[in-house]
């Protein structure tokens, strides 16, 4: 397969470009550090009004006492306004009508079971999937469970008009569900740097113009479209590798919360790498110049990141409309909703796939034009 040979050697030549490889690994790491740390406060919501939460306990032992203490502590009360309700049904009704944001419920004899070494659940009911009451409860559980994890939060979502017995299990994450600056920027900065990684698409074209090997490739018995595809694959592989590396650094070194579906993350990073490389190839085919392409990548890449809220979250109708021109928007939304809400938003994934197809089609159109 000629395409595979071209992809293989394109990849090899990319990774031998030590300067470029280093630059494109260090750039995103630096950006994540700078944006993630410096803009942390700018990103995190500044003031949260305490949330109204109901509490109903059939338990009258240790757990009930500790939880009461925890709810009345000063730190907790800046976030939660806990109100005791008289019956479970009363509490659930108030959750459904929206008076309460959630209901914390302890079952009868829970403390006894706990003291006997059994696993117990603190039940939490809410209409919202991504309520931040849950992390607060988890921090209680953590301080309580010194070493053994007998208590679990049993987060449950209340369907607006359904019987309380029809409850939907909510995915519980161990860290907070509110994205912190580092969570947000480790993704936006990753996508921004991947856009800049379009330079690997440029190299795949302009390096062959520079050393005239394009002549040899074009006189070989192989269709132009196969050459384009091989180069696209080779450089996409390079950028994909870089993106996975950055992703691992973000997750394990910066400890960003990236605990979404691994398959989704792999897919989004792959599609995005392909978009970036194809974008670079288009610029190179049109301009035939590394410098012009690099400059265009820098300018266009910055704009696409900006409108997608990569530097700070932006509001407004115009920005929102513009944001749909940016592949970052689809990629970021697909991952954010998955990581922080536990859902797959098909429209974003679909958007990204369509985007990929369009950009690759343009690559073939610009690349197949014969030079007179």
């Amino acid at each position, binding site marked *: 397969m*000629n395409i595979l*040979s*071209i992809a293989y*050697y394109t990849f*090899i*030549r990319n990774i*031998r*470009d030590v300067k470029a490889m280093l630059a494109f690994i260090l750039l995103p790491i630096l950006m994540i550090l700078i944006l993630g740390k410096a803009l942390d406060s700018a990103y995190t919501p500044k003031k949260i009004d305490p949330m109204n939460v109901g509490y109903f306990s059939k338990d009258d032992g240790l757990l009930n006492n500790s939880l009461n203490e925890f709810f009345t502590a000063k730190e907790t009360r800046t976030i939660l306004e806990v109100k005791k309700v008289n019956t479970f049904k009363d509490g659930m009704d108030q959750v459904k009508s929206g008076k309460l944001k959630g209901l914390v419920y302890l079952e009868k004899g829970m403390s006894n079971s706990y003291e006997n070494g059994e696993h117990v659940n603190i039940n939490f009911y809410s209409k919202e999937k991504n309520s931040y009451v849950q992390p607060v409860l988890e921090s209680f559980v953590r301080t309580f469970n010194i070493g053994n994890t007998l208590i679990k939060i049993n987060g449950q979502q209340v369907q607006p008009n359904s019987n309380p017995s029809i409850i939907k299990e909510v995915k519980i994450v161990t860290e907070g569900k509110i994205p912190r600056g580092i969570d947000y920027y480790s993704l936006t900065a990753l996508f921004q740097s991947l856009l800049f990684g379009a330079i690997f698409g440029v190299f795949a074209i302009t*390096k062959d113009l520079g*050393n*005239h*090997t394009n*002549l*040899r*490739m*074009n*006189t*070989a*018995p*192989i*269709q132009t479209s196969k050459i384009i595809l091989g180069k696209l694959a080779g450089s996409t592989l390079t950028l994909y590798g870089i993106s996975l590396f950055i992703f691992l650094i973000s997750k394990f070194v910066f400890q960003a919360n990236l605990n979404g579906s691994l398959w989704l993350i792999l897919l989004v990073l792959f599609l995005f790498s392909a978009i970036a490389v194809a974008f670079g190839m288009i610029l190179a085919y049109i301009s035939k110049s590394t410098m012009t392409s690099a400059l265009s990548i820098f300018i266009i890449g910055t704009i696409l990141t900006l409108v997608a809220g990569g530097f700070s979250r932006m509001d407004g109708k115009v920005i929102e409309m513009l944001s749909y021109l940016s592949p970052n928007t689809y990629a970021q939304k697909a991952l954010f909703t998955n990581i922080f809400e536990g859902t797959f938003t098909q429209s974003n994934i679909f958007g990204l796939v369509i985007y990929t197809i369009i950009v690759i089609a343009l690559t073939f159109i610009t690349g197949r034009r*014969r*030079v*007179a």
Partner: protein
Amino acid sequence: MLLEVNNLIKRYGDFLALDHITFAVKEGEIFGLLGPNGAGKTTTISIISSLTQYDGGEVKFLGKEIKRHEMEVKQELGIVPQEIAIFEDLTAYENLDYFGRLYGLRGNLLKERITEALAFTGLTDRRKDRPKGFSGGMKRRLNIACAILHHPKLIIMDEPTVGIDPQSRNHILQSIKELNKMGSTIIYTSHYMEEVEEICTRVAIVDHGRVIAQGTKEELTALVSTEEKLVIELSSVNYTVVEQIKSISSIRECIIKGNSLEVVGKKGEHNVSRVINLLTEAGIEILSLNVEKPSLEAVFLTLTGRSLRD
């Protein structure tokens, strides 16, 4: 005929780069395309190798129109571009491996061909090195190696000796002859008349996008040479003899250059023996005598009024 180029026309905007170029290459020959810079040699080759589109005429390889059999024809061509076309970031071996694969070579056959091409171009010892550190001559040789891996029927070399030392140049000229002996047909373009004279069996002289003459070297020189030039080295020169030589009707010119005489006259008038007679009668010793045959350079000069290297 292996290759037929008929009335090929190529325009760059208003500029007519190829103006009805016509020539044919037979199987087994080394065909020279000789012409000054800008004559249209590279353009012609780009068209034959399907790199460039053309505006008129036709190119046939083994009787097949190349436009309609592009891949088939490309498989049988080995192109040595005028500009060195090798990957600086891949080793010599990897360069050959890459290009071999593009021509469909795989496995052991590919390995054999790479070994053969490396040996043929004298690069075996440097196969693991990247061309960055190669001399101009070595790069030129690798440039050739990349084109012969797949044993093409027709090897097209576009000025393969530009910018290298005489030793590498000889090596390359010798290997072209060898390739030809091994059965390859070769098109060799150059603006160096000496090279074309040395290795080519037939030549087309190109100028301003037109073939102004073609044939074997003998046919070409016969075409233009009605005169011959004698260069005679003497023990001494005296002016009476020079006047006597000048008075021979078939002699046009006699110039003294140091101890030598340069005599230009019509061919076939026994000028050599007449001049020798006059010199011996005057008692002048002849140290050496050389009859210069007209070169392709002279052919070009006569046909265009310009020198090849203008």
